[in-house]
């Protein structure tokens, strides 16, 4: 009876489904239309000179700086362990109360704000110290952990809990029957997040916290490319050797040692005054301060203030973010699809694939913020270095994932399979396109979030205006702009989910940081 009536709906659904390549075509068309609005200028006259100087630096890295880099290196790792561990713990508690809409909103706000922005904000109270970095990392990561842990809890077997007296509705029941069985999955995710945390921690140095990024920033600005190369090499070594020393049984030890180390550093004067001023005055919109909120004129001034802020900063910032993100995503896809054969032995041979692995590892391990920083030094602060750096980093990540799948796929193909370009074009690309789109969409969300942040480096995305507001000590404006950032994050998440459903790509979780 019901079947026939459901048929047309099914067909309509089928017709609404848009092909993957149509989405790509639309995105390219949009990019072409937006091209005049994208700032792609090279503003330095001799970008080659900077790259050459950096290249020479790599040939003769100045490891004399390493003795001083030691402290920055240790702090980078310690801050990562402490921040990620605290974030995981808070995230765990938030995940336990995931059914509450309030908790879900709080965790959206926590993860919607990048750790760099948290750091800029917290520093206005606490100054540029290691605990500030730990706190910034912990805040951003607690929101991420809350979401992922809640998803893991949701997928846990419901039966043990239902079998308990009173259906296990108490918190104890939740902990014994749901949380404990999920611990192995939590653990895996935590260990993987540590790696992201080390990269984040290094990047926090760019805003003045005492990690590797601080050294890189200083050395670059003084033109000491040998030292800068040494910092980059140290960062690679740190990330590449992670699997060797990041052993799970030793993790709790590392975390405790890290927290103890940061704790043992000379501590901060936590005058409640700074925090109180922040809440009672700094983040109150300027037109409403000093009792003006009681006056209708104050609210009118507030409306004007808000409108100017939204129309002159928030909207242009978000538009620039989206344009930058779109170009970066398209180029990421192009790089990934062209670069993945680099690590497929059947296509490039043994030597070629080893070389490919080295290139991809370097691009993957450099935090994208560092790549953009180098790009801006060489090319000037336009969208160009940001697009290039984002695309190289994310393209390398996808190329690595797809290339690995391709390598596993080749031996399973028929014996008389084609070779060379034909193998690539007729077998590998069509078979891997599903996974490719899933990865690209997932990385796309990350690219858009990073694009917002890159404003701190002088590119006119949302982060630029937030950085300016904080520089002008106008935290009230910063808060409004950060709300815009959170909303953009939420909308991007939604849009990505829609597109994923539309083109039938599966969800990818936890393939890379953020």
């Amino acid at each position: 009876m019901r079947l026939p009536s459901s048929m047309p709906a099914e067909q309509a659904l089928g017709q609404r489904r848009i092909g993957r390549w149509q989405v790509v075509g639309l995105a390219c068309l949009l990019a072409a239309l937006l091209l005049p609005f994208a700032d792609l200028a090279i503003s330095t006259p001799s970008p080659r000179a900077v790259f050459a100087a950096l290249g020479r630096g790599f040939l003769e890295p100045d490891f004399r700086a390493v003795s001083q880099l030691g402290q920055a290196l240790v702090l980078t790792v310690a801050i990562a362990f402490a921040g990620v561990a605290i974030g995981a713990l808070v995230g765990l508690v938030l995940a336990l109360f995931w059914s509450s809409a309030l908790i879900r909103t709080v965790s959206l706000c926590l993860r919607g704000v990048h750790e760099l922005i948290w750091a800029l904000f917290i520093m206005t109270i606490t100054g540029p110290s290691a605990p500030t970095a730990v706190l910034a990392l912990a805040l951003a990561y607690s929101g991420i952990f809350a979401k992922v842990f809640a998803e893991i809890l949701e997928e846990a077997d419901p039966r043990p809990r239902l079998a308990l007296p009173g259906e296990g509705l108490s918190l104890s029941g939740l902990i014994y029957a749901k949380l404990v069985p999920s611990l192995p999955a939590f653990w895996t995710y935590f260990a993987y997040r540590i790696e992201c945390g080390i990269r984040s921690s290094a990047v926090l140095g760019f805003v003045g916290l005492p990690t590797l990024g601080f050294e890189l920033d200083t050395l670059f600005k003084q033109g000491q490319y040998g030292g800068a190369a040494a910092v980059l090499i140290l960062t690679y070594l740190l990330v590449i050797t992670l699997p060797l020393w990041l052993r799970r049984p030793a993790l709790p030890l590392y975390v405790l040692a890290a927290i103890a180390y940061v704790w043992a550093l000379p501590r901060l004067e936590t005058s409640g005054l700074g925090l109180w001023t922040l809440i009672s005055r700094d983040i109150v919109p300027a037109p409403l301060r000093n009792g003006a909120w009681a006056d209708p004129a104050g609210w009118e001034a507030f409306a004007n203030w808000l409108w100017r802020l939204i129309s002159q900063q928030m909207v242009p910032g978000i538009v620039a973010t989206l344009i930058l993100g779109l170009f970066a995503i398209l180029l990421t896809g192009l790089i990934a699809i062209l670069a993945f054969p680099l690590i497929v032995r059947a296509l490039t041979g043994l030597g070629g694939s080893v070389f490919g692995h080295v290139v991809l590892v370097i691009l993957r391990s450099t935090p994208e913020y560092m790549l953009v920083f180098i790009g801006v030094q060489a090319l000037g602060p336009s969208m160009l270095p940001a697009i290039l750096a984002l695309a190289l980093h994310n393209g390398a990540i996808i190329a690595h994932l797809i290339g690995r799948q391709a390598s596993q796929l080749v031996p399973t193909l028929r014996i008389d399979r084609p070779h060379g370009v034909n193998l690539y074009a007729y077998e590998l690309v069509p078979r891997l396109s599903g996974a490719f789109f899933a990865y690209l969409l997932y990385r796309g969300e990350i690219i858009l979030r990073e694009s917002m942040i890159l404003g701190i480096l002088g590119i006119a995305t949302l982060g630029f205006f937030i950085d300016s507001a904080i520089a002008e000590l106008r935290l009230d404006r910063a808060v409004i702009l950060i709300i815009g950032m959170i909303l953009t994050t939420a909308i991007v998440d939604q849009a990505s989910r829609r597109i994923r459903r539309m083109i039938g790509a599966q969800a990818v979780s936890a393939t890379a940081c953020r």
Partner: protein
Amino acid sequence: MTLQRREFLVGTAALLATPAIAQARPTLAFSAIPDEDATKLMERFTKVAKYLEGQLGVSVQFVPVKSYPAAVTAFRNNQVQLAWFGGLSGVQARIALPGSVAIAQGDEDKEFMSYFIAHQSTGLTESKDFPMGAKGRSFTFGAKTSTSGRLMPEFEIRRNTKMAPEAFFSRVGFSGDHTKTVELVASGAFEIGAVNFTSYDDMVKSGKVDPKVARLVWRTPTYPDYNFTVRGDADQRFGAGFTEKLKAAILGMNDPAILAAFPRKKFIPATNADYAPIEDVAKQLNLLD
């Protein structure tokens, strides 16, 4: 290099340790806006710290920070009690912490000015009038809240061109500090730049920049700039009469080596009221609420 890195760490440690030490023996922590590269800042302020320690009988720690707002917030949060601010950051600090006072400025600071400098390829040369020929070229300010690198140059650009900087120039950047501004113009990364005149003159004198490549094209009218500002509760913390003693110590600075690091000829008294023009301009440019 070695010294500088270690000094940073010591300084950071000092920033954090100050309150604990303060219980036992008062330590005067002081900071400065990072308007030039780190080497220069360390050279300048380690000398000052040693000098003040000798004069005041308290231990003095220099706390380096990486941004202008960080200097202001460290001051407000009592992580430092004394700071060498620019015109605008000083105004920001004294608004953020009522009761704090400007006590001294350099002799040059009562009539400070900015230089507009241009890369030789622009063909611009020094003139008495605003360089209208810079229209459509790329331009960089210094730090976002620098008085001589942002506030006054923007004010002059708007006054002379009747246009916003973004409209008058093809591209507007923020280099972060004066050293960087000069380097960017010298390399041609930006065709025009606005810079603190003492920083530029100093770089020319020490041979760090070729004045033919990054050449001076215009001097702005003068305005008040840098100042030493101290917290209002300094006497409470360090003993009665401390602020006066501090002021006398700064004004009495006559070692050419210390003065050259700023670079200033000598220090003279200053008051909060001296900086009212800066506050007005900042409000006009909507950099201050």
